[in-house]
């Protein structure tokens, strides 16, 4: 094991063969290690914890672009949608929001959640060409899904805003612009993808302040019961009970598509 990217055995072998002083060989190996880190765009060797979560979407994208996906994944609309975005990018990054920064309000049949994503790890030379916010709709939590399918009770409108200025007080609205919107019906478990490219472009290339995104879920019809149902259906926050296993894979995900100017874009690899 090594604390760096060069395995300990390799370090030892170089030290024995190079015939240099330990300081000299350390310096040469240090320079080589910098090249390796630079190649991967890293500042130091990653040491992820056992609890690190790999979003299933990123694994699906990997298999899709590596050409390992079977036909069923080949027909996956999410993969197809991302294929266009990825066709101009060579780097796809995923971000979970900072949960401690969440602000939740639930007023007048609307649930609004603010999400802050720390995107400072995107290097300055990387041009973010597009970005999507992915939100999970959990069909399994909807008890009245069948009934909702034939009425307006199971309808929700999801609005995604970029926050320009947070609300100065609890009674005031933040200054925000609408980025994307969609009308959804309860009944099935599905990921919804929203285009948040303008916000990411402002935060990265234009150097604008990142005050986060707001996700507003309007519960159309159904009163207080519909509101509660909708809040569980559109997974914008962690539930209070029994959610530790599912939340890591169901929580909102920000995915950025960028190009660092080196090499070609990600393209689906066809099997020979």
């Amino acid at each position, binding site marked *: *094991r090594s604390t760096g990217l060069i395995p300990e055995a*390799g370090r030892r072998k170089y030290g024995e063969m190079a015939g240099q002083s330990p300081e000299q060989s350390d310096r040469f190996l240090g320079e080589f290690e910098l090249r390796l880190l630079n190649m991967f765009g890293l500042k130091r060797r*990653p040491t992820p914890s056992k609890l690190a979560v790999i*979003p299933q979407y*990123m694994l699906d994208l*990997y298999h899709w672009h590596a050409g390992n996906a079977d036909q069923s994944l080949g027909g996956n609309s999410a993969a197809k949608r991302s294929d266009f975005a990825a066709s101009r990018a060579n780097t796809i990054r995923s971000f979970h929001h900072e949960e401690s920064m969440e602000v939740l309000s639930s007023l007048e049949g609307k649930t609004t959640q603010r999400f802050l994503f720390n995107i400072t790890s995107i290097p300055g030379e990387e041009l973010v060409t597009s970005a999507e916010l992915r939100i999970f709709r959990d069909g399994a939590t909807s008890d009245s899904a069948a009934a909702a399918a034939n009425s307006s009770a199971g309808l929700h409108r999801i609005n995604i805003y970029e926050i320009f200025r947070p609300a100065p007080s609890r009674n005031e609205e933040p200054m925000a612009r609408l980025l994307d919107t969609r009308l959804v019906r309860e009944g099935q478990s599905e990921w919804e993808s929203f285009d948040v490219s303008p916000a990411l472009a402002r935060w990265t290339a234009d150097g604008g302040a990142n005050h986060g995104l707001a996700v507003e879920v309007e519960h159309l019809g159904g009163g207080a019961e519909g509101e509660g149902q909708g809040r569980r259906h559109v997974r914008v926050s962690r539930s209070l009970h029994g959610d530790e296993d599912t939340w890591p894979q169901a929580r909102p995900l920000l995915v950025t598509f960028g190009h660092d100017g080196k*090499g070609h874009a*990600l393209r689906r*690899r066809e099997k020979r």
Partner: protein
Amino acid sequence: QARAKPRKKQRANCRRHPLYVDFSDVGWNEWIVAPPGYQAFYCHGECPFPLADHLNSTNHAIVQNLVNSVNTNIPRACCVPTQLSPICLLYLDEYEKVILKNYQDMVVEGCGCR
């Protein structure tokens, strides 16, 4: 019957050889999620004089080998990758963010004398 003269051992000409890079061998499997390794290949072999067409050589390599045939102080052309292709890596960076990135020139597609 005269014993067969031991043939001078012929060194293989420049060509591509298999090389599987297992990320666990270099201790990178902790942070590279997928793939677990990949077939990188390597180039090895002789670039003999005169260079054959299939050795994918350049004009410079042909002339260098010609000079080597009359002056051994000048080395022969080298067997190197002439065509490379990218691979996709899914990994965790130092901030535990998951990244999918296309890395250029990771797999040898073809070798030649250069």
